[in-house]
């Protein structure tokens, strides 16, 4: 079953006290596939993605990436393994420029600036940052060039603002920065947690086009999304969750029409738009604050 899968998670379980937030979930993504996970608020989607990307540790289960066991690796090791993610409430570095934000995405690929020698590496890293030999300068220049290229894929949205701090950007632009930062990692798999959360209709359409473009580049993408419209258009496959379990899986149309899915959404009465309820539960992450205070 998992043969040919780029990423395969099996039996993933996470308990919070009495709540089983994720309950024995299996998830397999093939190279180049676009898999969406839908489900009402509190279904366990974010928790599942946190487990897969190392933000949280699972109680049971296993995750393999390209045949390598990456279960419960630290977020840092996950990044090194090629897992990049964005955050539901947006987590750009507010006081850093767009350029620096995206350059952080390049961090795992720095070679010249980050010597890998044992013991003396810290001293070497400081000395190289001070002296800046040609190799370091060339690497930095190349990364900056690449950042410009990535940012340019968002049209004229970000390019003129490369040197502005991201706290000064619009909410939609901050989410673009987050995606650019993820792309700069050269991820094997890209995990997007509700990229349109808190966006208005036109912004949502724009974000859909961005994600669509990523898909057409042949990237492997895992998406959490509330807005079914986007999910239906983009996904190769859809997985629906409720109460921590997978309740349906298959083509977008099949999952949409599955009675269990309809019931789950109706039961929570938040089909397609759970955002306001969730936002009010999280003071300080409202749209105006944008999660960057």
């Amino acid at each position, binding site marked *: 079953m998992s043969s040919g899968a780029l990423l395969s998670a099996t039996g993933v379980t996470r308990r919070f006290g009495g709540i089983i937030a994720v309950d024995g979930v299996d998830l397999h993504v093939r190279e180049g596939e676009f898999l969406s996970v839908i489900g009402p608020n509190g279904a366990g989607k974010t928790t599942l993605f946190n487990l897969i990307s190392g933000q949280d540790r699972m109680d049971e289960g296993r995750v393999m990436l390209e045949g390598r066991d990456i279960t419960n690796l630290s977020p840092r090791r996950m990044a090194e393994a090629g897992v990049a993610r964005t955050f539901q409430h947006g987590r*750009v570095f*507010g006081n850093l420029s767009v350029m620096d*934000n995206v350059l*952080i995405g390049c961090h795992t690929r720095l070679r010249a600036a980050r010597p890998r020698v044992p013991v003396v590496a810290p001293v070497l890293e*400081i000395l190289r940052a001070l002296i800046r030999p040609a190799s370091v300068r060339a690497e930095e220049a190349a990364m900056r060039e690449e950042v410009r290229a990535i940012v340019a894929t968002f049209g004229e949205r970000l390019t003129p603002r490369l040197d502005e701090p991201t706290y000064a950007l619009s909410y939609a632009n901050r989410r673009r920065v987050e995606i650019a930062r993820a792309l700069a990692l050269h991820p094997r798999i890209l995990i997007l947690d509700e990229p349109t959360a808190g966006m208005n209709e036109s912004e949502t359409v724009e974000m859909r086009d961005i994600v669509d473009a990523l898909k057409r580049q042949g990237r492997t993408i895992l998406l959490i999304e509330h807005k079914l419209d986007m999910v239906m258009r983009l996904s190769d496959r859809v997985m629906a969750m409720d109460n921590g379990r997978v309740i349906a899986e298959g083509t977008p149309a099949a999952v949409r029409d599955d009675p269990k899915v309809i019931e789950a959404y109706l039961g929570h009465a938040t089909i397609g738009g759970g955002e306001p309820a969730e936002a009010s539960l999280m003071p300080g992450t409202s749209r105006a604050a944008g999660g960057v205070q």
Partner: protein
Amino acid sequence: MGSILSLPWFDFTVSGVVIGSIYALMAVGLALIFGVANLINFAHGAVFTVGAYVGWVCAVALGLPLWATVPLVALGGGLVGAGIEYIAIRPLNRQSRIAPLLATIGVGLILDQIVHILFGANPRALPVPMPGWRVSVGQGSIGPIDITIFVTAVIAAAALYAFLFRTRLGMAVRATAQDEDAAKQMGVNIHAVNMAVFAIAGALGAIAGLLVGIYYNAIDPNTSFQIMLKGMVAIVIGGMANVPGAIGGGVILGLIESYGIALFGASYRNLFAFAVLLLMLLVKPNGLFAKGREREAEPMTGTFVIQSMPVRPPGWLLALGVAAAALVPLAGQPYLTQVMTNAFLYALAAISLTLIAGTVGLVSIGHAALLAIGAYASALLTIAGLPVALGLVAAAAITALLGTALAYPAFRLRGHYVAIGTLAIGEIVSLVILNWTSLTNGSMGVFGIPPLTLFGVDFFSTNPSYWLVLGLVVVFALLQTRLLSSHLGRTWRAIREDTVAAETYGVGSNYYKGLAYGFAGFTAGLAGAVTAHQFSYINFDTFNLLTSVLILTIVILGGLGNVTGAIVAAVLVAGLPEMFRVLAEYRMLFYGAALLLLIRFRPRGLLGSG
């Protein structure tokens, strides 16, 4: 074995419980404030001192009996507490998490200085007539003082419970501590709640001050900080906002200290408290009484560094500034040159702290420890025969290594806990220096440190010494600026902004915090070492908590993370007061007021945070 068993354990237990109940009184106030206002009140120790002196006025100057003194002390403490809330906390309107904490440090300094001005800097006796009987229990005994203190503490705690559970305001306090937003929606007046909590905490803290005075038959205007730290350790043991936990934490701390002194001696008293504190922060940061794994809070993004664009003075202006500074000795005023030398030493220290606190976001209240390590390292090495030039470099390198290793446990901590942790580490360093007599000469200090002679050239007379320090400031400012423009600069700032997101993109935050500490430790160690050679004498108190607070004030004034700002601010804060007699005399008042006003009116500093 026999000798340990034969110690008077009963007496140690009694004194542990009695002292512990005083710590508990302090801790309850801190816990209440932490619960409602989400801050550690560093002025709480000053309230304790105020209480002791109000008690002295009532009991000694006015000759009132104890039953009349206690309520008056509570009233005085309550008023001071409410005043703190009104002056320091309310205007800040929660602009950032760490700002009110720093504001309370400022108020604490001001209150302490006022007590000094009114009552002098020396301890006073506080004789309270007590009957002479003692009840013997087994091998030990209990006296009326023990009982008085314990009973007063219990009555105060009972009164607090009656307030919290029997009055409307008390319920509002509990509701606010549970969920401030919900409480607000239910119409709770948050300002009133805050003020009530500060007043109650003030009353309890003041009573604690009186009780300690009675217990030791003496009051001392210089103990504010130590006692505040004890209360803080108690709430860390008890679980920060947990009021019953604070009582338990206070008693546990009292017992640990009492038994520890019994086994190791009195000079280790404070060491236990800080060791317990560090251990708790590392092993059980939610307190002894917490149940299970708590939900992780949202990240404290941008804990203090406010969104602002730093001012970038043009290169020619900076060059002009350096040139002007280099000409200072030509004014022919040796005193001015000495003052400026001292100011630039602070600048060197501030450059290093602005990297840690500003760029990386680890707001440290223990930075003086790095200076102390550098000073002792260079002093001891050169006295042992190493040339001064080598001593300075070795001291800087030792400080880089040792400082990073000591701070490492604090890297895991966030927000307030960083401040508490670095404070504890700083105090531990100073206590180790005090107690490791064979290496450091203990409380006697180190004499006869060789003067600054580098490669046979005199750098100890006024002018060369000034130029040397100025040169170091310029060199390290340039080096640090260069680092900030490299990948290290953005990586450090990313860690400060959102450690979780940085880790998610492969940044090993502990490693990079270590790099920052290493570089800052080198700079700070050098500053401490140069100071040691200039003073020719240092002791464990040469670089104390006030030094740490002063450096932090400089860093905030300059703009967190701003290198140029740190230098300018050092001249203003460490240089200016010395040129005006009045300011120098009331130094603490000046520093306290400067800190308070800064945080209130210009939290981004003069030149903006970077």
